[in-house]
């Protein structure tokens, strides 16, 4: 479980690399009529829900082990 959570957190770390590119004149998020903002929004929502699901699963696992 811990491994999966760590993996998820590390994947989320890749999001910070998007932000690093923004200082340049060609902002990735502003290209193609800002479609990547929508991609980012969907990624945020999905990752929040997935993290929540992992927490539910952890609770379930504790119940199973009892």
């Amino acid at each position, binding site marked *: 479980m811990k491994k999966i959570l760590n993996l998820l957190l590390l994947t989320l770390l890749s999001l910070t690399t998007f932000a690093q590119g923004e200082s340049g004149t060609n902002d990735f998020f502003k290209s193609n009529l800002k*479609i990547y903002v929508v991609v*980012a*929004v969907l990624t*945020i929502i999905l990752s*929040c829900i997935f993290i929540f699901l992992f927490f*539910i699963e952890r*609770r*379930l696992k504790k*119940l199973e082990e009892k």
Partner: protein
Amino acid sequence: MNWLYSKWWKWLSVVLLTYVVAGSFFVKLGPGITSVTPVAMYTDTVTTFQITCYHSHFNSDKAGKVQMWFKNQSKYYAPLSFKVTGNETAEASFAVSSLQQDSFKPASIDVVINDELDGTFALRDAITLVKATAVDSSSTGLLTPTEPEVKHNKHQLVCYPYREILYETIRNTFFHVPMWFAMTMLLFASLIASISFLINPQTKYDTVAHQAVVVALLFGVCGYLTGLIWSKYTWYIGVSWGDVIRKLLLEDIKMAAALVAMFFYFAYLIIHSSIEDKTKRAKVAAVYNVFAFVIFILCVFVLPRLTDSMHPGNGGNPAFSKYDLDSTLRMFFYPAVIGWILLGFWILSVCIRLQFIQQKRES
């Protein structure tokens, strides 16, 4: 509480959200003008402009006659020449006499295009008029404003409105906005459960109220984070992350009020976990929950109406007027709201059932 175990509404949320996500991917943005070059023109000189559009159909059979105007203030001027060079490109020339330059105030000119299929669309402040310092009295070709005659202003396509600044991010309407709807509905469910507990003290009502707040906060956090990134690239373009957060908290009343409301519910979770005695805990939490909901309603629905906010529909006007949502957006927005709310209740039902098993084991 049979709704926890019935399946049809869970399937409904799957169907609705699949439809919404597919719609948000496959429906194109409506016709709009992406660029007009050159961006400046001098008086007494004929300038030819290259107009590039997005998702327009100039060469289509249904387009009919493609018309184009230069607009300053509320006056429309016909171009000297206008030629369609492709489905999404056109060429137009225009000149302003220095005798007339003072009537162009402010000195920015909009470009407006109409055809029968794409309707009317425009690029505001597309061209800047550079005024001459000395008026050439011999210049000819004085412009007279025309009255545009169009068949229809509304486009005949299935597409999202092309808005400057927003562009493709208008699709976030199906993801960011329903987060708050889902949060509100979950908190309302929590309120109902708390009131039920006060009327009829059973532990199951306390469980429902507590879990509903947890899931509602999940949606609240999603709504907040998505709003943060959306505003960074639309309202606060070119502003650093630190300033975006500062502006959102200090300048946008809706964001600040939503954060305050969410803190009240975080306090609910703390109260719920800090009292050991189960019946006492349930009673205190239920009473607190009723007050928290009132504060939530005040913060999210009343406070933002009192003052101006960057959010559409605030500062006195009800949200989602006919200008904010067009028919294509509505086609996906209402299913999105229902779909996300149902998904929230689905997650809630899993949490509650898990809690029930835990309580059964403990007793």
